[in-house]
């Protein structure tokens, strides 16, 4: 069964289509929400809210658009609303802000990055990603974990393509800086 056929059956309220879509997206949605809010309990709550919102608004979904982009934008809007309500300070980072100077300066070179990553532990990389501002965690998750096209990411974030590129570049620079400074310094 394709996503499109599951979605059209979900519009008719078919429980089997719901089960199929849940099966297909459960881990990806949970992972994405976890990257955004970082707390499992909050991610679980938002997981439920996202599915309820999707089931409620599925008739308003335009099949000409990508279902995944629509689905993740529903999840993202709920997560951002949550962060805005409970942790407004986490949204302070905006596109107008400059990349911190230390992200660009005194990088010890690619060999240091490679050395660190060679001994990488997945948990530590996830920890480094979690230390980035939410707008950067968001774009990294959509690009590298959800493997979305840049145009789809722009649709999910509701920003121009150029903003997606800027955020991606800054997110990678920031992550690299974190890895090189914190891991090299022996911080665990």
């Amino acid at each position, binding site marked *: 069964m394709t996503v499109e056929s599951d979605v059209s059956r979900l519009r008719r309220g078919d429980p089997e289509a719901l089960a199929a879509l849940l099966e297909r997206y459960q881990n990806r949605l949970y992972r994405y929400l976890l990257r955004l809010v970082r707390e499992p309990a909050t991610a679980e709550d938002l997981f439920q809210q996202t599915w309820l919102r999707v089931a409620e608004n599925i008739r308003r979904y335009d099949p000409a658009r990508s279902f995944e982009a629509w689905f993740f934008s529903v999840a993202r809007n709920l997560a951002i609303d949550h962060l805005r309500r409970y942790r407004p300070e986490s949204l302070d980072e905006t596109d107008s802000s400059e990349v911190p100077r230390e992200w660009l300066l005194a990088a010890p070179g690619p060999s240091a990055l490679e050395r660190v990553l060679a001994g990488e532990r997945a948990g530590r990389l996830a920890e480094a990603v979690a230390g980035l501002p939410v707008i950067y965690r968001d774009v990294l998750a959509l*690009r590298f974990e959800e493997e979305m096209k840049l145009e789809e990411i722009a649709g999910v974030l509701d920003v121009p393509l150029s903003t997606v590129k800027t955020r991606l570049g800054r997110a*990678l620079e920031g992550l690299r800086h974190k890895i090189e400074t914190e891991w090299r310094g022996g911080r665990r």
Partner: protein
Amino acid sequence: MTARRGHEAIRSLLALAVAGALEAEEQRRVEQHVAACPGCTAELAGWQELAGSLRRMPTPQAPAALVERTRARIEAQWVAQAERRWNQQLMAFLVLFAWTITLATWPIVRLASRGVASWLDVPYTRTWTDLVCYTVLVWLTAGVAAALLAVRQRRERRLA
């Protein structure tokens, strides 16, 4: 000096190159430069390693109980929505039915009232008052029917 600036410009594009975020022309320029620059080749390898590590990060699994709870909540929501739709349709039907009954039976009631009035030898003049009283009576009956239906439905839901 120009070559140095070109080198720096390409270096600043390497992160976007591994993210697949460059235009075709920029990508071509990067590839050409990297092929001839060992420093940028090493730098690009570092970015590629980082991008690969991001793609390989383990996916946390959604708890099975959470998925089950979510499914149950959506299905309960569908049932509630279907019930709301049914109630709205029933209400519309009852309104239509009550008006139909009121208008269709009014001439009969009027004729019968006149007959009874003339039989009792009472002058029959209160047409509008009677229409209002009759309408209220019919609507009250429809309201009671709707309330009884709702009670029955609630009882059935409790037993289910």
